Every structure is written in C-alpha cells, then in structure tokens.
C-alpha cells in the first residue's frame, strides 16, 4: 500500500520545519571530526554530507546505552520503590540506512518475546524512521547476503531513495503517512525517475550457512578465526541488532536506582558463574556464540536473522574481525 511521491531536495527544509513544528526531535547522522555520529539536528544542513553510515547504530534511540529502570529510597526502617518513566521523546530518525532500519525488528523480537519491555516499546512508539537508500557501500557491507538491500524498505516509515534532484519517497506505514501529512506540499507526484542506488553483491549463501552451522558446533574454524579477537564489546555495542543488556544497582545507605546497560557476549565475564566456572571459557567459544546467536538461534527461534549486514562490527573491530569474510569462509568450508 506504499504510495510513492517525489520529494525535491529543496523541500527537505519544509519537511524538517513541519516535523519540529509537530514537537518531534530529529536525530540524523552528522559529521564530527571525520566521524559520522547520530546527533539531534534542526535543519537539513546539519545532516552529514556524503556519509556511508554512523559508527554506533540508531538502536540508541530505542535501547540507550544506560537507562534507569526504577529508583528506591530507604527511610527509617522502610524502603519505597518508584518505577522510572521512560523518557520517550517523539523522535524522527532521519537519514539512517535501510540495513539499520531493518534492525529494529530484531530488537523487537527479543524485547517483546515474552514480557513486553515497557521502556523499549514506549520509545519505539514515539519513534518514526525516515530511511535513505544507499548510494555508497564498502567492503564491510553485506546487506544483500542477509535478506536486505540498499533500497530495502523494511523498518522504515518513509524510505527516501535518491533520484535526480531529490528523492523517491515511499510512504510505507501509518506513521509515514502521518509525517507526510504534516508537510503535504513537500511531497510531489512521482515522475518515476530512475533510482540511484549502489550495487551490493551477495557475499555468501546465508540459508546454506544457517543449515551448515547446525553440525559445525565443534568445528575448529571458530578457534582459527577468533585467535586475534581481543574479547572487547565494540562489535556488540555498535551492532543494530545486539540486544544483550546487564542490570546493576547504584545505591548507598539512603537509596539509589537500578540501571540497564549494554553488555557483550564477547567479554570474558559474560557467562562467568559466581563459582568461578565459565561455560564459555575461551574466546573461540564466545566468537562462535556471536555467529550462532545471529545466524542459527535467531532463525530457529524468531524465524529471522539477528544480523542486517550493515558491517559496523567489522569497521569498529580493533583487529578487523570481518564478519562477512568469516561467514563466507564458514559457508564454504
């Protein structure tokens, strides 16, 4: 039911003005000392120029690195608890890439698998996504190998695809329609211009890989691949679909609060038991867990992949653990 429009480059201003006028915060990729970071913007001019994608993923908007779940205070011999209200500011994610946009559904799968995560849902509710198709790629990108693509609409409320003089605007969801309605004059009729989108070759046969993983659990390939991995959390924290978190209390005699923070299965303490036993003792087991969780357990449990092929983990890794390269290797051997 996508209705297509043509959004001229110039009328982005009116769209931005309409959105901010409607009290929405706009987050977009911005240029900061040669890095592309997601930051609040007020006008199209603030948006990064000719960028590939942000370093950290847009999941921040729905699943922040630190959020308060509740707080408590101890009085004279008594304790009273207070739930925290999620700071769900109406937000528009402008200019994120189709791969990241499609990541939210992987988060949603876990946050609403059993208990409905009040905080995540509140933020998703207040969130609208205006994705922009990719005119650039690099060797780390492999969205097409995991069911995505430079023009994929999955996860976006409106997908802008660059065309001559502006964008093809595909309004895809109710939220998309609501946003388009705020600035009808910006959306012209669709002249059917040719989409300028980059070509992303398929890197490996993903279904084949998922099938082959079932009997490769004890394979030595995971040891070989992970020898150089230093076991930090960079790949997990930049990944749009990594959803693991840690809960910790910060308190003193008078009271305190409970915080949720990002966590990474790559760390040496992730599965450390109080007894000192650690089911995933070696780095190879942890690397294998990262691959299996996204390419074997996710399909098995949620019938979707835990990876959108954005390549952020490869770019962020201090020792260049190229996920695409390793998956391709695992798929063939």
């Amino acid at each position, binding site marked *: 039911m996508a209705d297509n429009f043509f959004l001229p480059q110039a009328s982005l201003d009116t769209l931005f003005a309409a959105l901010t006028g409607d009290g929405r915060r706009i987050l977009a990729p911005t240029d900061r*000392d*040669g*890095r592309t*970071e997601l930051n609040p913007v007020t006008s199209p001019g603030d948006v990064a120029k000719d960028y590939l994608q942000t*370093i*950290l993923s847009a999941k921040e908007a729905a699943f922040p*690195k*630190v959020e308060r779940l509740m707080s408590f205070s101890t009085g004279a011999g008594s304790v009273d608890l207070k739930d925290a209200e999620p700071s769900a500011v109406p937000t528009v994610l402008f200019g994120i890439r189709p791969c990241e946009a499609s990541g939210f559904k992987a988060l949603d799968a876990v946050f609403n698998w059993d208990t409905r995560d009040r905080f995540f849902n509140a933020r998703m509710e207040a969130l609208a996504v205006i994705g922009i198709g990719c005119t650039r790629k*690099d*060797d*780390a990108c492999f969205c097409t190998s995991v069911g995505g693509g430079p023009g994929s609409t999955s996860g976006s409320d409106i997908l802008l695809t660059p065309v001559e003089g502006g964008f093809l605007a595909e309004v895809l969801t109710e939220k998309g329609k609501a946003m388009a309605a705020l600035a009808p004059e910006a959306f012209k009729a669709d002249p059917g211009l040719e989409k300028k989108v980059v070509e992303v070759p398929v890197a490996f046969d993903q279904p084949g890989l998922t099938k082959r993983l079932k009997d490769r659990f004890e394979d030595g390939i995971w040891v070989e691949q992970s*020898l*150089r991995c*230093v*076991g*930090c*959390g*960079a790949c*997990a*924290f*930049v990944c749009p679909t990594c959803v693991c978190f*840690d809960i*910790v209390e*910060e308190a003193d005699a008078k009271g305190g609060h409970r*915080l949720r*923070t*990002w966590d*990474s299965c790559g*760390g*040496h*303490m992730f599965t450390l038991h109080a007894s000192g036993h650690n089911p995933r003792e*070696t*780095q190879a087991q942890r690397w294998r867990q990262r691959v299996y969780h996204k390419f074997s357990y996710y399909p098995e449990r949620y019938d979707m992949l835990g990876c959108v092929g954005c390549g952020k983990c*490869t*770019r*962020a890794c*201090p*020792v*260049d653990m*190229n996920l695409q*390269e390793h998956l391709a290797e695992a798929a063939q051997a």
Partner: protein
Amino acid sequence: MDLREKSRQLLENGDVKAVIGYERGTMGARRPAFIRKAERADRLVFDEACAQNLATYLTRPEVRKLGRVAVAARPDTLRAILQLMAERQVKEENVLALAGDGTVELGTAQAIEEHLATCAKELPARDREILDRLSRMDRAQRWAFWQAELSRCVKCYACRNSCPMCYCGHCTMDCNRPQWVPVASHALGNLEYHMVRAMHLAGRCVECGDCGRACPVGIPIHLLTFNCEESVHLQFGQRAGASSKLDYALSTFRPDDKESFIR
C-alpha cells in the same frame, strides 16, 4: 630474506610453535595473524600500516600453551615484551622477537634492549596537535574537552583488551565487592574507568597508542596514559619497557623525590 621466509624457516625447523604477525585485512587494513604451519607463512605482511601491538597476545592462555612463539615486533612491541618480562608474564625463552624488517632475530631480553637503544620514539602529528591544544586550555576547558570526549565512551573495553599491559584476568573494573567503578557508561563511570586505567598504566605504559587506535568512537584516550607515563619519566626518570628487570616507579621510591604541592 623477509618476514615470510624467516617465519617459514623458523616453523620448518621447529624453533617456534607459531609466528604472530600481520596479514592483509578489510580495505587495506592490517590485522594480527597466527601462523602455525610453514606453508601459511606467505599470508604475512610487515609494513608501515601494521599498527596493533602484538605483545598483547603473549599473555593469552591459548598462546602460553603453545610454548615458544615468534612475534613480528615494532619498537613499541619490543618495549611491551620487556615490560611483560619485567612483570613475569612472559618468559625470555618463550618469545622470539622479529624486529627491524622482520628478520632481525632477538631471542634474549638483552638483545631486545640493545636493539631498542637504536630506535627513536616520537609522537604522531595528530597527538601532538591535540596535546598542544590541551596545553593552551585552562582547567575548565580541559574538563569540558574530556567530558565531551568521554561522553561518547560506551565502555566496550576495546582500549583495555587491546593493551599489552592490561593482562589482569580480574581487572578493578570487574571487581564488585566493593564496586570501585560503576559498571554503567554514564559520565561518572567513564571518568573513573579511564582515570583508573591511566593510573594503572603510569610507569608501565610503553606508549604504543593501541588503546587510541582501538577505540571505535575515536576518543584519544591514549593521551591519558601517555600523560601519566611522561609524568613518571619527568619526575622519576624511569620509563616502561626500558629493561627486563622490574623498575616500577610506583612501587619504588627515592627519599629525595622532589614535589612542590605537599604542605
């Protein structure tokens, strides 16, 4: 004769169980490589782009189990090896450093020390630029600068885990009784983490800059440890990685250490 030929030779006649070097990575990057069979030696490459300090792998249980390994070593790597030997983490007979263009075999601590004497050490331009800017700031501006930089930290610990000197199995950050440093990466957690890490490297950091390179969000945190190391060198004359004999500034002293602020 280059690093590949040398590695093949070492592996063939069993001098070492593995060669830790660099190989080509994504988009021209270089990344650590573990070569255990002679025929895979030609994956190795050793040029200016090889940055990571491979000494960080010498304290890995998997590498320790291998026994004697060769390491492609830049000067910073050699300094890290000496410091690790000084802190009894690496045994002299378990490491063979391949310095210079990768063919200069340095099998003993003494050989490494002599080779290091010929290597100059200077600060990359980008770091000098930032340090210069910082030196012209007053306290409030320095506070603002570091708060802005550290606000981007997500505590992924890439800096800690890629640092050769951060080999502690149970780091202060992992300590929760008492919880010295908050787990969360809010402003306090980040400030205290990076402050503690810099202090723990004072007099131990070989200034290879790997922590700065490893940071996914590009925070120049290597300048914190460089500052501590320079402060140790300036005031106590000791420098990490100078010798394989332990000379740790913060657990030795001289009765006449000069300072001007104690009342």
